[in-house]
């Protein structure tokens, strides 16, 4: 990695750079501008994570570098966040997108701009880059969207395969705490208290709303650019990593967009490809620069004559809770979908995966409600957090497994495996989890990819339909896209389970899934070896000098699963104390603390409970503020009960409290009166 301090252009940092919207709202921005007489393009990144004290580390790693190479970068606090006026009421609202359209016009009209605007961002900023592109602001010529989605229902932090992700409540709890922080008095001056008061007045748990939309309705279609790919005319570079939870969107974008598009999927988690673990990292800033130069400066960087998709093919590695770096290699596809990728069909016979179907005795599985603990955490934030899936062998014991023969040759998967299942369930609400594993000769089982389906959504995600009990039904589970080489001598294992805790909220009752051998099949996307792959190269990592930071309290992390042997209660506690840091160049101190606990009795899904706690603290100028949010999700009868509370302190004194409670019907009660009580539920 190279830290570069000198660039072709000198960089001027303007902070704050105020943008006044048509409704009078003042939007706080930091602009890094190349010092030049020539007009320059501007790349916007617009997120709610507080540019002054939230994303400052990564901003300073990246944006001055880009500005130093002739592209101005504007880091914008979304309305209601950071130092911007107004309030933020939910993610990805039309208001946010309209603001962005105005901001793009503002920069296009700036005397120092060449009128060509880009948008870039990871996660939230990747989402809104797509969403804003779909509104076609004339100056927006290109975007880079990282770790984002084109389908807010299919692939975001709320739902997966129709099932509720536990991260929904955890994420909303974080936003609850974050939205309670004030603007920086050093920037906004005496107005900070009044601005803050407005924010606190509306700060609620957004999950109240998200839980009200368990189906793929208009709420989720808004902001899902997959609804109309043709609306996007700006060029799109989509970037993600296999260890992130958003990589499915990239193949969909490449296949769906009619605008020029390119994709890069690396071995990374939810981070920029030049930062964080696991590696290998790439010179993302150089790659982005080639993209901007082509689309915003009209220079021929050759990037558009390169392959449509560059993807990392991970090698078979022993399971670990986190990886510094992955082993593997880059491959490229000229087109996506790629005609090169073939399909291998494998039938789910009696505990084996085979090329030809064979009948046999019916197989059943009823996983304990706590199955899934070893499967890692949705979101996989990587770095040194031990959140990756570990050895799957214990999970395989709680599932119905189908093993292939040892592979005669290496098998390279690129794309999404798809399962077509004929099976019956004994409850009207049932979720099936499919895991594809790489089984080493010594038995070690490594998760390759997985997919889930709440079977009530088997006919479409728009409406839930209770499963007919004990009647064979057909459904398809699309596993997450993956790039992986399974070596010769290893086996493929498909494991089917009926629970996925602590990633998915459990169905209200234990479910038995039964299927007849030979009637279900797995389609694997197989990529043959290709001689052109060895030419793929990325530049080594370069960044600008890091932000001057003093660590006052170092970060610590704990990830503990504790089974109470007497009661059968499993308690998973994920604690991250981010410590306390001081940003020396701006005299700001921040601390953060997260603790998420997941408890449930092995045999009683109705006992499930998530308790998420997030604490944030900020000292800047006269502000000495701490917010602490707690959200609890559990069953009450067959309804979901969300309870949350927020406490905000100034200099240690409680200043503001808010609390809420929302009860949501997730499984209609009458659905569950058809099933007879199961023996041996609970202890």
């Amino acid at each position, binding site marked *: 990695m190279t830290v570069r301090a000198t660039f072709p252009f000198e960089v001027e940092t303007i902070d704050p750079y105020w943008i006044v919207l048509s409704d009078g709202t003042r939007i706080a921005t930091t602009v890094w501008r190349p010092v030049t007489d020539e007009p320059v393009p501007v790349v916007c990144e617009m997120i709610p994570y507080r540019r002054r004290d939230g994303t400052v580390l990564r901003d300073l790693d990246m944006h001055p570098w880009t500005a130093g190479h002739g592209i101005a970068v504007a880091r914008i606090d979304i309305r209601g966040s950071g130092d911007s006026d107004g309030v933020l009421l939910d993610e990805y609202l039309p208001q946010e997108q309209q603001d962005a359209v105005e901001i793009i016009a503002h920069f296009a009209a700036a005397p120092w701009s060449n009128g060509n605007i880009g948008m870039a961002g990871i996660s939230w900023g990747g989402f809104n880059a797509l969403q804003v592109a779909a509104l076609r602001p004339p100056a927006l010529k290109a975007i880079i969207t990282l770790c984002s989605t084109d389908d807010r229902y299919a692939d975001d932090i709320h739902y997966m395969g129709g099932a509720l992700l536990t991260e929904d409540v955890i994420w909303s709890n974080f936003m609850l705490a974050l939205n309670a922080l004030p603007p920086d008095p050093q920037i906004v001056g005496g107005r900070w208290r009044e601005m803050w008061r407005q924010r606190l007045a509306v700060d609620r748990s957004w999950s109240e709303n998200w839980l009200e939309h368990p189906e793929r309705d208009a709420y989720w279609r808004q902001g899902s650019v997959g609804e109309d790919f043709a609306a996007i005319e700006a060029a799109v570079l989509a970037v993600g990593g296999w260890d992130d939870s958003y990589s499915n969107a990239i193949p969909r974008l490449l296949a769906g967009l009619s605008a020029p598009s390119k994709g890069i999927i690396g071995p990374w988690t939810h981070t920029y490809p030049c930062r964080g673990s696991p590696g290998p990292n790439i010179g993302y800033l150089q790659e982005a620069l080639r993209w901007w130069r082509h689309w915003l400066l009209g220079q021929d960087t050759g990037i558009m004559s390169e392959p449509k998709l560059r993807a990392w093919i991970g090698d078979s590695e022993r399971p670990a*809770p986190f990886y510094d770096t992955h082993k593997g290699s880059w491959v490229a596809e000229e087109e996506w979908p790629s005609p090169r990728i073939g399909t291998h069909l494998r039938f789910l016979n009696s505990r084996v995966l085979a090329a030809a179907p064979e009948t046999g005795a019916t197989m*059943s*599985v*009823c996983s304990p409600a706590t199955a899934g603990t070893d499967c890692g955490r949705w979101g996989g934030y990587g770095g040194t957090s031990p959140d990756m899936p570990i050895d799957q062998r214990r999970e395989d014991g709680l599932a119905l497994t189908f093993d292939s023969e040892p592979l005669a040759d290496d098998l390279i998967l690129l794309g999404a495996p798809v399962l077509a299942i004929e099976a019956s369930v004994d409850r009207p609400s049932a979720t099936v989890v499919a895991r594809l594993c790489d089984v080493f000769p010594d*038995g070690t089982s490594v998760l390759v990819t997985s997919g889930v389906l709440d079977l009530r959504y088997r006919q479409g995600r728009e409406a839930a339909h209770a499963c007919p009990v004990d009647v064979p039904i057909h459904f398809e589970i699309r596993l997450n896209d993956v790039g992986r080489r399974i070596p010769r001598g290893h086996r493929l294992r498909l494991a089917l389970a009926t629970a996925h805790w602590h990633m998915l909220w459990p169905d209200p009752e234990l479910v038995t899934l039964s299927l007849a051998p030979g009637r279900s099949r797995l389609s694997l996307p197989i990529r043959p070896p290709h001689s052109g792959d060895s030419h793929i190269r990325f530049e080594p990592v370069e960044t600008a000098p890091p932000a001057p930071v003093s660590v006052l309290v170092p970060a610590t992390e704990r990830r503990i699963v*504790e*089974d*109470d*042997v007497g009661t*059968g209660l499993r308690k998973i506690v994920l604690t991250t104390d981010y410590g306390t840091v001081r940003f020396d160049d701006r005299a700001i101190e921040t601390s953060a603390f997260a603790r998420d606990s997941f408890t449930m009795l092995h045999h009683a899904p109705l006992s499930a409970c998530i308790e998420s706690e997030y604490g944030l603290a900020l000292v800047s100028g006269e502000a000495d503020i701490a917010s602490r949010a707690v959200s609890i999700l559990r069953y009450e009868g067959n309804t979901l009960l969300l309870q949350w509370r927020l406490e905000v302190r100034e200099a240690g004194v409680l200043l503001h409290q808010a609390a809420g409670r929302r009860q949501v019907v997730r499984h209609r009660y009458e659905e569950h009166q058809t099933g007879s009580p199961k023996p041996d539920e609970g202890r």
Partner: protein
Amino acid sequence: MTIRKDYPRQITVMRDVFIPLKDGTRLAAQIWLPVDADKDPVPAILEYLPYRKRDGTSERDAVTHPYYAGFGYAGVRVDIRGTGDSEGILYDEYSKQEQDDGLEVIAWLAKQKWCSGAVGMIGISWGGFNGLQIAARRPKALKAVVTLCSTDDRYADDIHAMGGTLLVDKVSWGATMFSILTTPPDPALVGDKWRQMWLDRMGDHALWLLDWHEHLRRDSFFEHGSVCENYRAIKCPVYAVGGWADGYSNAVFRLLKGLKVPRKGLVGPWAHKYPHFAKPGPQIGFLQETLRWWDKWLKGIETGIMDEPMLRVWMQDPVPPRRYYETRPGRWVAEDVWPSKRIKPKRMAFGHGTLGGKAGKGVLSISSPETVGQTAGRFCPYGLEPDLPDDQRIEAGGSLVFDSPVLEEDAEMLGAAIVQLEVSADKPNAKVVAVLSEVLPDGAVTRVSYGVLNLTHRNGHAAPEAIRPGEVMRVTVRLNETAHRFAKGNRIRMALSTAYWPIIWPSPETATLSVHLDRSRLEIPARPSRPEDKELAPFLPRESSPPLRQTVLRDGYSHWSIEQDFATGVMDHKRDTDDGERRIEEIDWTVGSRSRRSNAINPHDPLSARSSYWNEKTYKRGDLSLRIVTGVDMCAELEHFVIEGRLEAYEGEREVIRREWKKKVPRDYV
């Protein structure tokens, strides 16, 4: 439980009896007997233990010995030399000294005015062991023995070893005895010398673990006290009792087979407790049952007990896997003699994941994560806490699993299943673990039995030898005896693994075993039905004498957990227990105890195994306040075990003693 208050004979108790031995040592005894025993002498029933009659076993003694007294016996509880209120030092378990003393005690009892001259011995665990050991010394007055949860083979079936492996419970046991041996006598009984007796007890000899680890193979240390070495030495009748949930039931079957004297065997669903209060139930009227035995052999009254079948066992029904059962469903069945010719091995071949079909071709390999065994419970469960095996499913992925087809009819077994293996290993030291289970229709898996073998002991436990990597070995793994009905609709599962923590200590390196399928098989002792079982006389409902009068001053708790750290992978089996504090009213003596246990291992590192114990015991009366804290840690290196011990004792606030021990012992193929 019916608490019986009315008896044929009125009961009295002598709390401060001291039995003089030839060497001048006095052993403390408490004796319950009919008030008129001097006029109408009675046989004595001796229970001879190191667990402190005054406060250690006083709860269970109260519900047992007065009952015998009420029916015309003297219930005699004697503290072994160096324990409780007895003088001297106890240097090890089951020592010859202990037996010599026992012979003197029996002779002393027989000649008491209140004694008819006939003596019986009863005991569970230690007291079951020494009943057999002393019987083998043939004291004249000893007429019969009831031995429960004991062993005839201290290497094969005791808390030290199983199949040549080291049981993790051995460390627990060593820590427990360390905490008991360092406790004081009651000053109210022994007078001013109590303090010196206490100090004498807290010497090097108290940490038996240090010496035990010098004996990891079946040497003379284990031959001593193993009555299987010469069954013919025992000349008095023996009633052997055990429980399927206990760690000691195998001995019942060997005793019935090996002994030549009149003998009976009884195995219930119980863990390591007396059958009138053991869990899992159902309990039985064990005192009434043993009275029939004592009446026959100590009083010569014909009760018909010897006309009944030699062996009676609880045939267990399928149950969902649970760490704790209030009762186990099943039924009593019997065999007229043991071994029973009616029971024949049913052979089941290993296929690729199948059991009982066609034998598979080729080899299957297994190298388990070191955490396999996490649902195994304990070697010797007490049944009162969640210490039984849990759902075995989670172990399947780390094991080689062979499942039978769904059973089309019930299949019953009685005895020891056997796994014959042709197997090779890639390391000089490796274990094989064989777990027999029943797969229920919903996928839950209940353990039925298990067995382990240290492959370096393949040619005998006395002379281990290193494995030659790659060499195919023919070995037999004998599973623990059991009686079980596999039900129609379920499957039989055999799971083979290379690890079983926290039951056995892992080998120094993680090994891979390769099993040759067509030369390996499972043999299940199939038991045909026996129509006469329906006519077996039921046991009487359970009865006991009134419980000990005591006041709880601090409530206890027990918390068992398995904790895994995702970051390090380390899994820790923890137990945090407070037995509370209670005042025994009859002697105004307040006792309390607390303990903590930790058995931790990393799934990928056998040398990460660590077993740690902490015990605290307190004794109080008036101004007297004594506290003893003991700790034991064991871990292992490639070549050695490392054992550490700590002892602190306090009189009031004053530290009386503080000592530490550390010892490295060669692993000797373990």
